[in-house]
C-alpha cells in the first residue's frame, strides 16, 4: 500500500502540460478568491476606521470620500472628554462582561463536570434541558425578569445585569465545558481518586489545569456574548452612567439633534478593541469548544 501511495504522491517531472496549466489557473483562481474574501472581510473595517477620522461635514457628504480629506482626531477627543458618558459605557461593559465571564465559567465548570462524569439517571435529560434553555426567546423572558429584579431591588444595578448575563451564558457554558472535560481521560482522575482526593479537589487540581484552554474559550464566549448584548442592558438599566456600550451607543449618537456618524465610528472602533483582543487570544480553541460538545459527548 505504501509503495503505491508513494508512487501516486510524487508528481512526475514530465506531467502533462495541460495538468500543470490547469493547476496554475486553479492556483490563480484560489488566490483571486482569497483576495476577494479579504476585501469583503476587511473593507467595512477600513470604512469604520476612515470614517472615525473624518469631520462631521465630510461624513455627511452626498458623495463620500474613500480616503479622508483631512484627518481629524476630534471624534476620539470628544469621546474621552466629559461631554459624553462614553468612558462610563466602556467601563460598565468591561466590568459586567468580565465578572459575568468569571462567574459563568465557575458554574459552567461545575455543571460541565457533573454532566460529563457523574452518573445519575436523568443526566441526559438534564443535559438537553440545559441546552434547550439556550433556545429560549429571551425577549419574552425580559419582561418577567425585569419584574423579578424589580422586587429584589436589583433593577438598574450592575448585579442585576450580571445575573441576567450569567443566566443567559450558563447553558452554553455548561455544554462547552462538558465537551472539554469529556476530552480528559478518566485514568488521570482515577489516579487522583486513588490518591485520596475528593470530587471537588479532583476538579480543581486535575481537571481544571488540563482544560485551561476550554476555560478560557468558555470565558471568551461569555465575555463576547455579554459585550454584544443589547436587549438586557437596554431594559434592565435606566440611568446613562450605568449603561453599557450597545444601548449607550444607540442612544448617544442617534439622539434628538443629529446622527453623528464620525463620533459613532470612533466609538465603534474603541468598542471593537476588547472583543478583537478576546477573540484572537482564544481563536485557536474556538472550533474545539463549539464542536466538542456534540462530537465527543453524544
Amino acid at each position, binding site marked *: 500500500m505504501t509503495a503505491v501511495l508513494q508512487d501516486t504522491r510524487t508528481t512526475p517531472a514530465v506531467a502533462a502540460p495541460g495538468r500543470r496549466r490547469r493547476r496554475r489557473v486553479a492556483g490563480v483562481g484560489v488566490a483571486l478568491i482569497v483576495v476577494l474574501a479579504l476585501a469583503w472581510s476587511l473593507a467595512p473595517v477600513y470604512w469604520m476606521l476612515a470614517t472615525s477620522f473624518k469631520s462631521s461635514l465630510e461624513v455627511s457628504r452626498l458623495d463620500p470620500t474613500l480616503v479622508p480629506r483631512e484627518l481629524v482626531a476630534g471624534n476620539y477627543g470628544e469621546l474621552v472628554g466629559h461631554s459624553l458618558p462614553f468612558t462610563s459605557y466602556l467601563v460598565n461593559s468591561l466590568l459586567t462582561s468580565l465578572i459575568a465571564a468569571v462567574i459563568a465559567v465557575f458554574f459552567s465548570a461545575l455543571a460541565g463536570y457533573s454532566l460529563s462524569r457523574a452518573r445519575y439517571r436523568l443526566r441526559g435529560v438534564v443535559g438537553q434541558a440545559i441546552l434547550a434553555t439556550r433556545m429560549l426567546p429571551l425577549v419574552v423572558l425580559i419582561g418577567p425578569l425585569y419584574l423579578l429584579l424589580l422586587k429584589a431591588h436589583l433593577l438598574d444595578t450592575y448585579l442585576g445585569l450580571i445575573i441576567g448575563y450569567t443566566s443567559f451564558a450558563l447553558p452554553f457554558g455548561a455544554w462547552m465545558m462538558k465537551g472539554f472535560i469529556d476530552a480528559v481521560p478518566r485514568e488521570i482522575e482515577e489516579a487522583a481518586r486513588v490518591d485520596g482526593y475528593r470530587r471537588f479537589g479532583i476538579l480543581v487540581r486535575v481537571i481544571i489545569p488540563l482544560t485551561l484552554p476550554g476555560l478560557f474559550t468558555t470565558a471568551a464566549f461569555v465575555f463576547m456574548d455579554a459585550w454584544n448584548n443589547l436587549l438586557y442592558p437596554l431594559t434592565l438599566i435606566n440611568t446613562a452612567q450605568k449603561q453599557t456600550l450597545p444601548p449607550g451607543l444607540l442612544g*448617544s449618537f442617534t439622539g434628538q439633534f443629529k446622527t453623528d456618524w464620525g463620533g459613532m465610528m470612533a466609538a465603534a472602533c474603541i468598542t471593537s478593541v476588547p472583543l478583537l483582543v478576546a477573540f484572537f487570544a482564544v481563536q485557536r480553541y474556538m472550533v474545539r469548544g463549539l464542536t466538542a460538545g456534540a462530537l465527543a459527548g453524544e
Partner: protein
Amino acid sequence: MHPRSTGGTTDRKRPQLRRLGSHLAVLPVVAVTALATACGGSGGNQTQNTPTSEHPVTITFANWADSEQATRPGIEDMITKFEAVHPEIKVKSEPISFTDIGHTMVLRVQSGNPPDVAELSGNDTFAVAATGALANLDSYAGDLKSSFIPAEIAAGTYQNHLIALPWTVNPPGLWYNKQLMAGAGLDPNSPPKTRDELMTDLAAIKAKYPDVIPLGLDSTNRDFSLTSNWSWMKSFGAQPFSGDKASANTGQMKDYLSWMRELAQKQYTSPGKKIGEFRPLAAQNKVAFVWDQPVLQGVVQSTNKETDDQFYANWGVAAQPTGTGGKSYSVELGHQLVAFNKSPNKQAAFTFMKWLATDPQAVTGYTVKYESSLPPMANPSADIAKVIGTPTLQAFARDVMPTIVKPEFGPTYSEAYSPIMAGVQSVMTGSTPVDSVASTIQSGLESAFK
C-alpha cells in the same frame, strides 16, 4: 469504595485541599455579596421640610439634555448657575436617552422610585400622566399660568390640571433655503403658501438640482414622527384616531397617504429618515425645504460654522403651506418639566422648574443658546425679548406659534403610532395600494385599542 491511602503525606494534604476547596467555593459567594453591597439602587430622597444652605435638599432631575453631546455642557452650566442662586437646593442630573425616557419614567413610577423632576416632551408627558403619578402644578404655578402662552399651557394640561410646566417652545415650521430657491427660479422671499404651490416648488428644485433633496420630513416609526406628521394629516382634514376610536379608513386619510406616496415616488424626499439625518445635509445646502423645529439652525451652524448673518441670508421659515380648509397646522414638540406626587421635595422641584423655564439666565444661556427654542412666556422681559428677536425666532413666534394644535396625546397614542407610521412607511417605500394600507392601519389601531 476506593482504597484510602495510608501514607502520612497524603493525609496531611487532604485537609489542606479541603480548605482550599472550600475557599474556592466561598469566593463567588463573597464576590456576589460584595457587589450587592457596593452597588445599590438609586438613592432615596432626603425628607426635610425647610432646606437651608447648610442643609440643602437634593433633587433628582431625569433628563436627556445631559445625555447628548450637543446639550450636555449647557444643562450642566444651568445646574451650576441655579445652585449658585439657590444654595439650599442641589440638583442631581440623571441622564436618560430621548428614546428611552418616556417608558423609563413609567417603569420607575411602577417600581416606586420616580425622580423629583423629569424632562419630557410630546406624548411621553401624557403617557406618564396617565399613570397618575404626576404632581398637580396648579397650586405651585398660580399666577404664572396666565403669563404663559395659552397653547403652551394647554400642551401641559391633563384632565384639567397643569401637570407639565412648558420649558422650551419648539414647534416645526417650513424652513426654506433661499439660495436653492433663487437658483431654481423661485422667489426666495416668497415661500409656498399652499400645498399646491409647495408641490410646484419641489418640482422646480428637483428639476434644477437633481442631487438635492427637495423636502426634509421625518418618516420613521416613532411617536415623535407621528407628532411631527400630525400637522400634515390635519391639513388634509385627516385624523387617524380620536381617543380610542380609530378613524384611519377615511377618504381624507387616504388623500394624505397618497400625497406621501407621491413625495416618495417623485423623489421629493428621502423616506424612512429621522429629521436629524436631514440636518447635516441642510448644512451643505443639499435640502431645499425642511419641516423642522427652530433647532435646525443650531445644528446647521455648528456643522458648517456659518455666522448668524450668513444663516439668515440663506434660510427663512414660514408657516405650513395650507391644504384643504385653508389652515396651517403645527404641533408643540418642545420640552416640558414635570414633578412627581411621590416626591417629598415638590416645592424645591418647582423652584428649579420655574427657574429653568423663566429665568433670564436660563432662557438666554440654555433655551435659546443650546435648544434654539423660544421661552413659553407670552410677554417676555426686555432682555429676553432682545435675545429672541432674531429673524428666524420671530418668524416662528409670529407665523408658526398660532397654528399649534394638540395631537391626541394619551395612553392610546403609544399604541397608535406604530400601526400608523408603519403604514406611512409602507406607502412611501412599497407598492401596496393606498386603500389596502389605510384599512391595515385601521385594523391595527382597532386591535391596539381593544
